[in-house]
């Protein structure tokens, strides 16, 4: 039974596709699945950086698609996880280097050997986007609760054909939702009309972990680690209740203040 | 904020309405500023040369770092300073400049209509109701970036430059045709980045892809001084060292930006906003003023940490 190929897309740039791909991939791997992460952002690759694997790249997606190497050579094993591999993007070629058919064939091949394939989609709706969705069965549309992001997500939802598309709402700030300064999750669901499979709070830990190349899911105790774990489980069919993000109240802030963490 | 004076010409250089129009059309860019002219004669000179406006593309490589916000705010600021400004949304299919400016409900025709001549430029331009010298040329939403021929885009930018003091082009993310169309015809570039590894890496790539001869400057956006102090975030100096570009501004991160986009009001107009103040300084620098870039101090000590934590004193 071939694995599922998800494309992680958004339309709007900078909402967290790459971070989501890396961390969700790690979460699946920690749950015991064999995972391949594909960076489809040819020319502007970043998945390697977020995973801290940038120094180990020899072959990339374009090499694989053009037959210059075997999958085994292009896939980089992330040693921190049991079964997590990265297929990096090419940094020098531009996005016209790969066709949609080539992508479809390559992703289908990966699905034979892997349980889960996550394709990190570039921003926008040009060739890069079309290539990234070409081989995908399902879509995870990442958005933030902001006007531009939601507008672009709506546009993207209309371009995914008959693929199942679910939402991940990123960078949520519960205190701003409470004060009426940010759209709520309910608002997002109502406006976009799709199932929400993940709600991720805004957290400065992401910046730190990206700088270090250490996905936040490596630490199972961290709140974000638990959240990505929950998203993975929901995608696998489990009914996992959503964390109440509003727990980050006054007491927690005071505590952090005093301890200075 | 003086909105009434947008269309008025500085009285010392004009005697009649015709002189005013001629004078407005001969406003020079700051780098070419000459000594103040004597009072204009009663008859406008028939051979007075028209100065071409400045064409600036705002680009980044990485998405979501603040190109559109920057374009909207700099455009607004320049218009409020009395310049004739057009902001061009080059993000075909994923337009947002209209939404950030609060003009989305007045968009009817767009850039592709103008290029394909199913609309005149005047029909497509949306004039801001408050800042009367600010115009938006919207992107098409239901077309693709491939539909825009590069040479047509170049010609359009050129004709805009003949009409406006400032042509600000909001580039899409990425390095594909959308980006190439946005930079064509621009003589200057403002590269926007945030102090994060991916953004800096992409900015570096984009700088390498700018056509030769384009004068590029840097804005570092979404700076969070507290995180820089903690060592979690790169400092502005780190970024400038890597990218080796002249810095034209540093913009702090604030929740006011989200609120501003919710409302469709550029943050430059929100009183008390640090981000708005930073954009105002950048506008002044664009106009030729030498304003030092402030170093944003991280909050020190228990009391300021308390304030930051409980958000007291914030508008």
């Amino acid at each position, binding site marked *: 039974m071939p694995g599922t190929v998800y494309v992680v897309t958004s339309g709007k740039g900078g909402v967290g596709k790459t971070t989501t791909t890396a961390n969700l991939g790690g979460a699946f791997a920690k749950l015991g699945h064999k995972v391949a992460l594909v960076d489809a952002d040819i020319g502007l690759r970043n998945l390697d950086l977020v995973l801290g694997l940038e120094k180990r790249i020899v072959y990339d997606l374009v090499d694989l698609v053009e037959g210059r190497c075997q999958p085994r050579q292009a896939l980089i094993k992330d040693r921190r996880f049991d079964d997590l591999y990265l297929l990096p993007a090419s940094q020098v070629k531009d996005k016209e280097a790969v066709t949609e058919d080539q992508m479809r064939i390559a992703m289908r091949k990966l699905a034979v050997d892997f349980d889960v394939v996550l394709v990190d989609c570039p921003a926008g709706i040009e060739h890069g986007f079309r290539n990234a969705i070409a081989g995908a069965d399902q879509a995870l549309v990442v958005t933030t609760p902001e006007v531009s992001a*939601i507008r672009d997500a*709506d546009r993207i939802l209309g371009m995914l054909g008959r693929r199942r598309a679910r939402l991940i709402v990123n960078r949520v700030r519960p205190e701003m939702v409470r004060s009426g300064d940010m759209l709520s999750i309910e*608002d997002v669901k109502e406006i976009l009309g799709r199932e929400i499979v993940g709600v991720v709070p805004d957290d400065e830990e992401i910046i730190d972990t990206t700088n270090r190349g250490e996905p936040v899911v490596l630490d199972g105790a961290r709140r974000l680690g638990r959240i990505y774990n929950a998203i993975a489980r929901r995608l696998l069919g489990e009914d996992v209740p959503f964390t109440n993000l509003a727990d980050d109240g006054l007491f927690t802030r005071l505590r952090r203040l005093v301890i200075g963490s | 904020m003086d909105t009434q004076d947008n269309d008025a010409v500085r009285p010392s250089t004009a005697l009649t309405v015709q002189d005013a129009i001629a004078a407005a059309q001969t406003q020079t860019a700051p780098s070419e500023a000459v000594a103040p002219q004597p009072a204009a004669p009663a008859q406008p000179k028939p051979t007075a040369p028209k100065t071409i406006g400045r064409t600036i593309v705002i680009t980044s490589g990485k998405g979501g770092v603040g190109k559109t916000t920057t374009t909207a705010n700099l455009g607004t600021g320049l218009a409020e300073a009395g310049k004739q400004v057009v902001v061009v949304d080059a993000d075909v299919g994923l337009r947002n400049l209209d939404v950030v400016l609060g003009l989305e409900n007045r968009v009817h025709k767009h850039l592709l209509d103008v290029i394909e001549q199913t609309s005149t430029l005047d029909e497509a331009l949306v004039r801001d109701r408050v800042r009367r010298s600010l115009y938006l040329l919207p992107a098409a939403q*239901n077309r693709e970036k491939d539909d825009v021929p590069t040479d047509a885009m170049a010609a359009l930018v050129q004709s805009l430059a003949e009409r406006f003091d400032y042509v600000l082009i909001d580039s899409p993310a990425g390095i594909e045709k959308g980006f190439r169309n946005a930079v064509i015809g621009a003589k200057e570039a403002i590269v926007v980045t945030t102090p994060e590894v991916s953004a800096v890496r992409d900015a570096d790539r984009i700088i390498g892809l700018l056509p030769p001869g384009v004068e590029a400057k840097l804005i570092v956006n979404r700076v969070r001084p507290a995180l820089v102090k903690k060592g979690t975030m790169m400092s502005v100096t780190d970024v400038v060292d890597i990218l080796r570009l002249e810095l034209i501004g540093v913009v702090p991160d604030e929740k006011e930006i989200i609120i501003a986009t919710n409302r469709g009001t550029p943050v430059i107009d929100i009183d008390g906003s640090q981000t708005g103040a930073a954009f105002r300084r950048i506008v002044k620098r664009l106009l030729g003023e030498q304003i030092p870039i402030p170093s944003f101090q991280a909050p020190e000590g228990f009391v300021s940490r308390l304030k930051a934590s409980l958000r007291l004193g914030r508008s």
Partner: protein
Amino acid sequence: MLDFITKFFRREEASRTQAKERLRLVLMSDRVSLAPDVFDSMKSEMLGVVRRYLDIDETGLDVHFENLERQFMLLANIPVLKVRPVEANGHGLVAAAAGANGSNGANQPFALDAPNAAPRTRRRRRRRKHHPQEPARETDQQPPENPM
């Protein structure tokens, strides 16, 4: 603190509400322009219904969407030439095959049979060729004469 008080007393609309309302309008506008063929189908179907009850002047027809700043509207200007006679059950008549415009002014006969004649012959011919024993299929619907 002062800001909180003034906000409370002025009942300033939360920016979240503004955002939601703006998104509602802009997405309608985006979605309409993104699927023109879908909306063309909608317009055709809509006019099909109208034509059952009214004879309309096709040349003066104008149906379009308009984005007025606080509202998104479907506007239809449909010049009416004649109101069609109505059946006992209140439904409009199906347009006749030849005189589709109904411009002769005379009452159209209540003639469901006439348009059916030609296709039924075709069907019978088919049945004779392949399935001579098959009973006549009464449930086949008459396609509308004027899909556009």
